[in-house]
């Protein structure tokens, strides 16, 4: 199988006009080279702990009943104020429908998702497809999809064409691109592609304060906001400006966004630009009458469950994921 080089790309969020990321600005985070997939040959296999394993081709997939979900996807390693996050309208088949057609066994616990991209994560590991494991409850969520369209167009090749998983609310690595296999797993099932490839070593939350290290899997997206404008280091003449950005949470809709221009000493409410929805990000805006001075601009989001962004990074965290603290952007006005 021919493949293209792996990519790691994200784009400044200030390039987004409105609140939907256009397809050419969708962030890309590859683990292996992008595969070249022939539609004639492509199929999605559903197997594992099921009574009726089957394979479905592209034509059958796209002719199934479909749903649309507006949802953001964020890379688990997206920096504070980083741009490895995108939001748009995903269309596809409910993952639950595809699984139910295979009749999973009663004690099915999770689903392993495999992409058509493959490689070695570590030199001493076998060459295996990219894979992730997602709890079956999340797979049965109404909003979890095998998506084949983004913003009413087919998926861009580098974002998973012809079909990818989309799990709203979970970090992006679970939304496996170039999806080709769903394997239903029983409780405590061992020996999976996920383990053998070493993928289980990635995307872990490592907390080390006192006593032994605590290692848990990164999963649901933490509440977060970013500043699309201004950018760090910007020099501005005095005047009126709109500070703006986006906010999201895997825990539900954003209900509040606050802005500080003095490094968190005082906070003012920003205006949410649209009705918050459970899976999509929300654009926010704050009108700023900038007078000469040096500023540390910060945004802080709070979701519907009342969870707010932390003001600083937990010093006990020893990993590079869930970077959701309120990082300041410095700018000066003359």
């Amino acid at each position, binding site marked *: 199988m021919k493949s293209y080089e792996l990519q790691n790309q994200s784009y400044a969020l200030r390039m987004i006009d409105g609140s939907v990321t256009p397809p050419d600005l969708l962030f890309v985070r590859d683990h292996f080279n992008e595969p070249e997939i022939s539609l*004639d040959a492509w199929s999605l296999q559903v197997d594992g702990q099921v009574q009726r394993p089957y394979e479905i081709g592209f*034509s059958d997939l*796209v002719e199934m009943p*479909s749903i649309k979900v507006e949802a953001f996807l964020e890379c688990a390693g997206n920096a504070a104020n980083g741009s490895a996050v995108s939001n748009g309208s995903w269309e596809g088949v409910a993952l639950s429908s595809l699984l139910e057609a295979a009749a999973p066994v009663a004690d099915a616990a999770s689903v392993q998702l495999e992409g058509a991209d493959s490689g070695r994560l570590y030199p001493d590991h076998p060459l295996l497809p990219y894979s992730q494991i997602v709890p079956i409850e999340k797979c049965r969520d109404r909003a979890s999809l095998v998506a084949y369209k983004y913003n009413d167009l*087919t*998926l861009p090749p580098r974002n998973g064409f*012809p079909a990818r998983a989309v799990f709203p609310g979970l970090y992006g690595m679970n939304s496996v691109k170039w999806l080709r296999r769903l394997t239903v797993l029983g409780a405590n099932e061992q020996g999976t592609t996920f383990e053998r490839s070493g993928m289980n070593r990635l995307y872990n939350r490592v907390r080390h304060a006192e006593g032994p290290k605590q290692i848990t899997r990164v999963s649901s997206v933490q509440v977060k906001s970013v500043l699309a404008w201004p950018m760090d280091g910007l020099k*501005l*003449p005095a005047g009126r400006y709109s500070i703006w950005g986006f906010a999201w949470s895997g825990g539900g809709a954003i209900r509040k966004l606050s802005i500080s221009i003095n490094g968190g000493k005082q906070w003012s409410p920003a205006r949410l630009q649209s009705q918050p929805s459970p899976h999509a990000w929300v654009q926010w805006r704050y009108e700023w009458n900038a007078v000469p001075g040096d500023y540390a601009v910060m945004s802080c989001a709070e979701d519907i469950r009342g969870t707010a962004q932390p003001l600083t990074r937990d010093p006990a965290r020893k990993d590079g994921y869930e970077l959701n603290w309120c990082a300041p952007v410095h700018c000066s006005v003359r």
Partner: protein
Amino acid sequence: MNLIGARRFIAAFVRSRTPVLAALGICACTYIEATDCGSGVGLQDRIAQFKQLDGKAEAAMGRHQPEEAVAAYKQAVCLFPNSARAYYGLGMAEAAARHFVDARDALRTADRLQPTTAMPLVMQVRVNYSLGDLESLKSNLRELASRFPKDTDAHTVLARFLAEHNLFVLALAEALRSGSSADDWNAKIQLSVLENTVGAYADAIRNALAVERNYALPEAVRGTAAGIVGLSYESLRQGDQARKYLSEAIQLDPSQENSYLALADLFEQEQNYSDAVTVLEQGRRHLPDSNALLLALGTNMVRTENYEQGVKILRQVLQTAPDTSEAYISIADAGRKAANPAEEIEALRELERQHSDYPMIHVLLARAMSNQRPAEYTKILEELALAATAAPNDPEVYLLQGKAYVALGRYEQAASVLERSIGLRPTEPSAYYQLARVYQRLGKTDLARQQFERVKYLEQNAAK
């Protein structure tokens, strides 16, 4: 669905079931006695009545009088309630009369009565499209795939219909179904066009190459295939391959306008305007009346500073298509580059007459008028007043007004509009620069210095 389409499908159905009496014969074996019509009349008489109604309905459809056809088919249905032919005809007539829900009901009955033909399902796809019921449409497609997997004609017809209505992914699904069981070039071309449309470029290249390399096929067909290969390579950003296949497409079929345009577009992307001109001139020799080619040729000639020829060709476009905005813009561009503001203004005035709401037309005119010597600043300000009415929050309008007021020595007014421009766009250095000069002339040196400092401050951002 239009009537022509309906008639085509009726014709197809009749062909597949001819003679009509044979179909009626099938029905007659199992017909259910109607209770409210035709009772007490013998079978032969009812067949005769049916034939008469059928003919009447088809004639009505031919006269574009679907309501009359509906009435006739309803009587036919009453005579033979288990006749798929009658229900199919009724469905077609109801659809032509835009009674889509009734059409769907009739077609469903036809399908139930005659489950061995795909036509009622194919027609349901069209009716469900007209109803905007995409989920039912997909249900029809699934049923077709399940019951008629090898009916290449049905899948090909549907692929074309769905593509015509911009349902490209579903069209591709149907084309894949037909393409997998047929090796005719037409199906392959259709499939590759759809694959290119939805972004499956590697598949598009593979299928189109299969046609392009079939030397037994007419060159025009191979040329179309080469064009698809070229476009797909372009989408994959493989310029060399794209140029190769688009050139081949032109060679194989010089009458294909799109091949010249696509190849020229490639050169334009590389800012290689002279090669774009060469390709488009080649196209013009084969297709002298193609306005699309002439427009692209004239525009690229202007880009290569061949203003006289470029404008001449663009004027030729405007003779037959006077609403072509791009032609006026290119002529204005030629005027500006050739330091001929009168030509620039004239072209923009012509554009304004054709499209008074053309975006930023007054700003474009004001800029062109500023290039005239001597510039008539009062008229420029009149134009900019219109621009401000059309776009009251456009900072560029106030910046241009500021420059015009400066030229007229009306510095207080200049300061006012420049401050407004800065309020709308505080990060534009040239507005601060103009304002600084205005303050200098007003003797407000501190304010002038402050504006000059802001220009320097902003330039530090740009230098980063």
